[in-house]
């Protein structure tokens, strides 16, 4: 079965052009012109990646993103026409894995989608099981347990935790994490890392305000502490 992508965009012409470009990559594309249609299609088609424009009539992009996140860990790419810090961070906080600013090149979009698809299938893990205090990581099954109970992480959060867990105690710079988790070059957006670390903490830390496992190393980056 091929890769299915759900493109949510209210501008019909953009939708058509994006569909054409993505189909060139060999993917199947479903179109939704509004959040309501998108939710219905999402449950019917079970896409592998969702592309959401922030500016939507009715349910807006942020809300749609939050709605999907409640039940699904599907990779989401947010599309924004503005380069405002506010929109981007709000989108990431709502649960997006990555973002693109209009107008983006079709090649850029497919590269981002490919990076997200790669993330679903993590590279062969070195350890079958990793334990950090009350946290337990089972990379092969894509599972994280806290005090024996499963914690639901998105693919990106899980991948981020895995990368940090590969080398416990080692400091990973934002650039290194952007490269390993998101497939970005040197000029990726460090906010992607920051927001995802924040979200990861709310799920795996007992007290997200005073993290014990995913620790910030000021000026350098992040590391995982046992």
């Amino acid at each position, binding site marked *: 079965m091929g890769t299915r992508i759900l493109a949510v965009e209210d501008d019909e012409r953009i939708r058509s052009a994006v569909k054409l470009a993505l189909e060139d990559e060999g993917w199947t594309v479903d179109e939704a012109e509004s959040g309501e249609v998108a939710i219905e299609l999402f449950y019917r088609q079970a896409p592998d990646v969702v592309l959401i424009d922030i500016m939507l009539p009715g349910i807006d992009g942020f809300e749609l993103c939050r709605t999907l996140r409640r039940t699904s860990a599907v990779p989401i790419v947010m599309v924004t*026409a503005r380069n405002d810090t506010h929109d981007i961070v709000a989108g990431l906080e709502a649960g997006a894995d990555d973002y693109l600013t209009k107008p983006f090149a079709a090649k850029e979009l497919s590269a981002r989608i490919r990076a997200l698809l790669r993330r679903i299938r993590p590279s062969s893990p070195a350890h079958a099981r990793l334990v950090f205090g009350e946290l337990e990581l089972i990379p092969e099954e894509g599972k994280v347990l806290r005090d024996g109970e499963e914690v639901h992480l998105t693919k990106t959060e899980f991948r981020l935790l895995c990368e940090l867990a590969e080398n416990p105690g080692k400091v990973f710079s934002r650039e290194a994490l952007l490269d390993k988790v998101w497939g970005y070059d040197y000029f990726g957006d460090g906010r992607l890392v920051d927001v995802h670390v924040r979200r990861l903490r709310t799920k795996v830390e007992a007290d997200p305000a005073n993290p014990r496992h995913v620790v910030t190393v000021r000026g350098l980056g992040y590391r995982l502490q046992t």
Partner: protein
Amino acid sequence: MTATTTERAPVDPAEPAEPAVHRNVLQRTFGRPTVGRRAVGLRRRILLIFTLGSMTLSTFLAVTTFGLTRSNVVQQRDRASIEAARRNAQLVQDSLRANPPNIEDARDALAGFGVQRALIWYRPSQDWFTARDAPARYEASALPQALVDRVIGDAVPSRMVVDVAGETTIVVGWPVPGSGAYFEFFSLDDVNNTLGSVRLSLVFAGIITTGLGVLLGVFAARRVVRPLGAAAQAAKSFAGGRLDTRLEPTDDPDLSVLANSFNEMAASLQQRVQRDARFASDVSHELRSPLMTLSASVDVMEARRDEMPERARAALDLLSSDVTRFKGLVEDLLEISRFDAGAIRLHMEELLAAEFVRQAVAVSSMPDTALHVSERAERVLINGDRRRLARVIANLIDNARLHGGGTEPGPVEISIDVVDPPDQPVTRIQISVSDHGPGVPESERTLVFERFARGGSAGRRSGSDGAGLGLALVDEHVRMHGGKVWVTDRLDGRPGARFVIELDAEEIDE
């Protein structure tokens, strides 16, 4: 053209008139204009007014006080003298009432009371007698004729101020009925002494008051100017882009006028700027959507380029390159409108200069551009917004590619050097991009950093590529980073331009 200009004038008369009105308001508020004269500062003017005021006031008070004191003292002395003279005249009269009257008895009686400065005109002998032991200067010749006439001739008691051997003296004359007249001298010297010391203390008091006035003036001037300083600082900070700057509200009704109108102005400007920023972002959305469609469609066509007939392929190439250019232009336009709205927030981080430039070159339009880093510059940190500085490098490389002859006449080179001499710590580095184009003539070296600047020299900039915001953005970005950018000749003297960015830097401490 001329006609349109003359027609326009009456349609819009308010426009040129407005600044003049404003100037008048300012003049009214801040005093007369000081054209052709050296302007006297507000503070100095207040100080001058206080000094002159306190000086005038204390002088006036001193003069009045002195005048009143003198007339008071003199009057008192006058009355006392007249009274004393009357008593003594009575004494003389009593002595002369004896039978036969003897002038010597009168003199004895006077001497008995210690009166020395007296004269008796004895009618029976038509002669003048002085008191016993009278100092020589108190004799008849010292009496003014008018007084003698009035006292002896008209038999009216009289007084007069005369000068006796340099001493101010009151002479009082009392007629002695039947026997003649009695005159007595009262020196005013002690009165003068008193008045002298009064004068001296008044002068001192005046000086002290004036001094206090000056101090008060300094204080008042400082008080008056302080809110002006605060206002000036606020205006400066506002001009510097901090649009939320406001003056603190005050209870002072005079100052609150300034504070309120400043704050109103600031609020309305901020609103306008925010509206413009919103407009820019709305425009962004509007322009980006069709561009998005264009861009994605062109990509789809590009994928099928090989299946196209040659003419369609040529057209696609044109379309593709112009869509790219349009995209760049919209991005630049938005970025620069963000600058104008003061909406740019830099994400500053420490960057290893050499590593950073290497990465920036790698993602630019000429990733193979040669980079020379001096040994010292390898270990230098700069503080900056990674993505914006990368944009600066990319724009300079684009500029070299488009206007510097590309790589045809010779490769574009980038070098990083430390500005400071070897024996001093690193504070500045230069990143320069050199090309082999025709260079930039001296007269256009600031012009090229202006928006949509086109090189004046014909043929240098190939037609459509000339207009742009690339270098203007470089200028804005570098300035926001506290650095500067300029264009100059190549170092090796060959034709070509060299764009130099200078930024603050520091050595890695290890």
